[in-house]
């Protein structure tokens, strides 16, 4: 036991996961590394919003109404004198909730359906995947309007829309990857070890088939944030006074020529966050997908 440090391979499971995560970070390109830090920063802002925000996001100060960026209000204030920076920090919560929870739910629905379809095959596969095709043909914004129109506006409904719209894409993605993994010999080996089909699928196949799903998820978090902002901008998403980036852009649009800061900063926040998730996704895809070669754009 004392001689366990002469090579870098062993250690308990958790340590080796950490070491692998660090190695993965090292292999990402600079843009993806920077994006990862932005993503971590946004998540931190969402968690620590009450500590980080200088003001209560709902506190109105009519004295300071529509004041530009200054020492007291670094990003200015809106019509009712609420601090834009504080609202921006609290706004990360709605965006991330939609982004992470909705995409998480989409994965939670799509991955079991798709992997089951791919592993069992035959009629089960046909029925599940054709149902997914039906869902995939519905435009996201139209489904959003329909759900909000019948159930009312609100964060939960936005999350439901995103989860429904994205789940078929995960089902397709994981199905393809399960189909190719189940031909691998380690699956035959597991069958011959006497494992149940469910354990083979969950324990052996899924860990190998999840990589494209995780890469896709980073892209989807970004588009989900945009979808939330769009629905909120239209008044169909999160309702005021809850601060969200979409609501903030919407409320500042009539003041845009003079009081530009009300809409611009939340817009920039969306842009930076979405870009960060996308670039991180690109970096992860380059790392995991051997077909896309990093740093080589190709002649086409």
């Amino acid at each position, binding site marked *: 036991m004392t001689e366990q440090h002469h090579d870098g391979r062993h250690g308990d499971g958790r340590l080796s996961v950490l070491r692998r995560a660090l190695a993965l970070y090292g292999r990402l390109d600079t843009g993806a590394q920077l994006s990862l830090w932005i993503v971590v920063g946004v998540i931190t802002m969402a968690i620590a919003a009450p500590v980080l925000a200088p003001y209560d996001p709902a506190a109105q100060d009519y004295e300071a109404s529509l004041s530009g960026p200054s020492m007291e209000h670094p990003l200015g204030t809106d019509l009712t004198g609420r601090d834009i920076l504080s609202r921006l920090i609290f706004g990360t919560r709605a965006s991330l909730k939609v982004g992470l929870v909705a995409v998480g739910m989409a994965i939670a629905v799509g991955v079991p359906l798709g992997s089951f379809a791919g592993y069992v095959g035959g009629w089960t596969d046909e029925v599940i995947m054709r149902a997914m095709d039906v869902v995939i043909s519905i435009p996201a914004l139209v489904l959003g309007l329909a759900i909000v129109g019948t159930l009312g506006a609100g964060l939960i409904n936005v999350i439901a829309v995103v989860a429904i719209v994205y789940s078929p894409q995960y089902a397709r993605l994981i199905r393809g990857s399960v189909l190719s993994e189940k031909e691998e010999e380690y699956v035959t080996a597991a069958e011959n*070890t006497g494992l149940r089909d469910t354990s083979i699928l969950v324990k052996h196949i899924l860990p190998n088939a999840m990589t494209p799903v995780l890469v896709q998820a980073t892209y989807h978090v970004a588009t989900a944030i945009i979808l939330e902002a769009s629905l909120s901008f239209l008044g169909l998403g999160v309702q005021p006074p809850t601060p969200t980036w979409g609501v903030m852009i919407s409320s500042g649009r009539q003041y845009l020529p003079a009081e530009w800061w009300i809409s611009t900063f939340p817009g920039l926040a969306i842009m930076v966050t979405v870009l960060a998730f996308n670039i991180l996704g690109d970096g992860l895809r380059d790392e995991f997908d051997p077909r896309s070669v990093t740093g080589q754009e190709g002649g086409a």
Partner: protein
Amino acid sequence: MSEEVAAEGHGPRTEPSDGSEADLVSGADEPLLSVENLTTQFDTGEGVVRAVDGVTFEIREGEILGLVGESGCGKSVTSRSLMSLVPSPGSIVDGRVEFQGEDLLERSEEELRQVRGQDISMIFQEPMSALNPVFDVGWQIGEPLRVHENLSTAASRTRAVELMQRVGIPSAEDRVDAYPHQFSGGMRQRAMIAMALACEPDLLIADEPTTSLDVTIEAQILEIIEELNERQNMAVFLITHDLGVVAEVCDRVAVMYAGRIVEYGDVVDVFTDPRHPYTKGLLDCVPDPRRQQESFDPIEGQVPDLVSPPAGCNFAPRCPFASRDCERTDPSLREVDDDHYSACIWEDPS
């Protein structure tokens, strides 16, 4: 009729047996595994392919039985059929697979799972892809123990180290946490063997275990298999296309051609005195490095299309000794010598 046959004959003819092949082949003692008339077919777009067409053989306790034949003759499908794990669209349509006196083909899926990995285990041709790339080797070697003996992860890891030592993996305590890609091909195959041994099976099915390995590593792996066979009295069903491997490690051998067993018997008998024209042909194809050889004697022709196999003997279209009778009658295994069987109408064609 009899004159015509005699005119094109090749020595005395074999007597078709009265009973089934199973009665003929079965030895005195209760064998560990006895396969009778096993038939596995695949429903393909072009028709039904009988990949295993009425195969009968037995594996006695503690022996090494070799199964040889060309690629595609049904060797692997035979091994998968023993475990009732025939890949889709295949299915076992007939026969019995008696293991320790009970027919495995009549067992439920749940009962079969108890047998797999515990009483019968299996190793494969490609040790790279047969190990799951995302788990460390120790976790995988310990898996049968967690499945069949309900060991904890920690206990299974301790046993994995012992098993790795038993198959000769150096510094097993350190390497138990390594991932398959950190192992060489030979080490991976050792790890597979360790995994197969975990529950001390009575039978090990080795499906071309050394085909993808260097000759030196091949020798080491075969040595491990032989040693385990002797020390633990574990029977081995060794599937290979390498006659040299069979000669080296097997006690008895079954030669397979186009879904059938064409010759079956003691390795020494079969190799020194082959009776079936296919076995003769196979042995002529083996290159001998110590002999300056002008050319090989390849078997003429192609393996028959199994969607529409020949009416008579499957080998007749390629057989130098084929008579008109061979194209009509389909010979089953016949005893040609003591514990030596051949599926040819001639006792010793030459």
